[in-house]
């Protein structure tokens, strides 16, 4: 219907963006009715999303015509940005930015490097950057889930963790069950993506490959290749993140420094 009113492609894009944003805001209002407050976060995310993708899209047009090494810089910048956003999800977990940066670089970065070296990812900037960015984005999501879940697990099991410490256990040993739960739960989206490939969803990359003249079977197989790479990079990211983050909630004297916020509030109230 919008095409009837907007002949110009840019104007059509703006109208489509406005309509989809309104839909997202309507959903936010519905959530508000159920006492789930996502308004501010949604508005900020929508504004950031449209500004970022438009700006990056404009810059990409220029960069994609540049030399191959430009893609390394672009992917490195994406990893730093991903680490920053992911660390923001940890809600103040100590050391979450360096942990996220190491984990995403080691997870997504190593898979990108290995697969590019093996010829699975084309070295052309027009291929390396989009596929690399998919791996980084998914690694970021996985990393955020690990951080978020780990924090929640530690907060809700602080009594058991300190009991372990009081019995002479190594600090890393006391959080081992919660590290395992965090990694397992963070991998659910990547595993489900692979399980549902072709049945529940068809990635946009496949349509692009078909439009650019690739054989349908090869385009289909390459979707599997891409999602497999996402699974590998997400898994590596989750493992690195869990290895690094488990020490961050303890002091050098093996004291739990992350306490449940509710009990901290109670302590403050009782003092008052």
């Amino acid at each position, binding site marked *: 219907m919008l095409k009837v009113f907007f002949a110009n492609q840019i104007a059509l894009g703006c109208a489509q963006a406005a309509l989809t944003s309104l839909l997202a805001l309507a959903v936010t209002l519905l959530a508000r009715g159920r006492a789930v407050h996502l308004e501010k976060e949604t508005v900020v995310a929508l504004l950031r999303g449209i500004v970022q993708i438009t700006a990056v899209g404009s810059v990409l047009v220029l960069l994609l015509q540049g030399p191959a090494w430009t893609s390394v810089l672009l992917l490195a910048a994406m990893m730093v940005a991903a680490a920053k956003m992911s660390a923001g999800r940890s809600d103040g977990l100590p050391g979450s930015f360096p942990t996220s940066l190491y984990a995403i670089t080691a997870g997504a970065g190593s898979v990108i490097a290995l697969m590019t070296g093996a010829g699975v990812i084309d070295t052309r900037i027009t291929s390396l950057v989009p596929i690399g960015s998919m791996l980084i984005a998914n690694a970021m999501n996985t990393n955020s889930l690990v951080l978020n879940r780990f924090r929640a697990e530690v907060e809700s099991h602080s009594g*058991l963790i300190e009991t372990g*410490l009081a019995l*002479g*256990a190594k600090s890393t040993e006391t959080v081992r069950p919660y590290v395992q739960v965090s990694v397992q739960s963070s991998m659910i989206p990547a595993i489900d993506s692979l399980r549902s490939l072709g049945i529940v969803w068809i990635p946009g990359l496949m349509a692009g490959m078909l439009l650019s003249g690739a054989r349908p079977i090869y385009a289909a197989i390459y979707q599997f290749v891409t999602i497999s790479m996402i699974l590998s990079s997400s898994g590596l990211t989750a493992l690195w993140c869990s290895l690094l983050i488990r020490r961050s909630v303890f002091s050098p004297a093996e004291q739990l420094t992350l306490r449940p916020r509710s009990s901290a509030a109670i302590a403050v109230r009782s003092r008052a």
Partner: protein
Amino acid sequence: MPPSPILRTLRLTREVAGEPIVDDVTVTVRAGSVLVVTGPSGSGKTSFLRLLNRLDEPTSGTVEFEGRDYRELSPRELRRRIGMVTQTAYLFPGSIAENLRFGPLQRGLDLAQNAVEELLNQVGLAERRNENVSHLSGGEAQRVSVARALANQPAVLLLDEPTSALDADAKDDVEKLILSVVRRNELTCVMVSHDLAQAARVADEVMIMRKGKVARFGAAREVINAEGFLC
């Protein structure tokens, strides 16, 4: 000759957000004695106890354990020697025996079955080593918690209101059990309690805390009488 001091706090202070919650506490605990720390809610009793096995770090001051600054020991070794039983018995999922074996296992030691049975005898849970902890009552869970702390063969036992979460019958049982275990194993004991009557029953010495400071410290009878509670 009086027993030698086993624990000595030296101007022990812990601040949180700039506020002292334990404030300049200097006390000596004699080997083999039972010290009860009491005082109103928020007076710093539990915070003081957590400093003794270094679950929290002092802002200033220190603790001497067996004549040495406790920072000379690794935190893990210190916590093995100074065991702790908390108000809520946090038991690890699994059997009673697995809980008892947890501490020694951290040092690579496998607690023998007869040692497990001996500990369970002490806490009145003989022949129940294979029972899953999820089936235990509050009082039974606290008994397992005491036995688990003993499995590490500590020199000092810290007890943070170990009976306050229990009903009246279980409270009496667990209190008697703790006393018998402490005497039998010749342990030094520092126990937090908000109950002066309990302090009168179990303590050799009593320390009363108010606003993080030591308000009174001395022989149990004298301190409790001075507080207007007749022993």
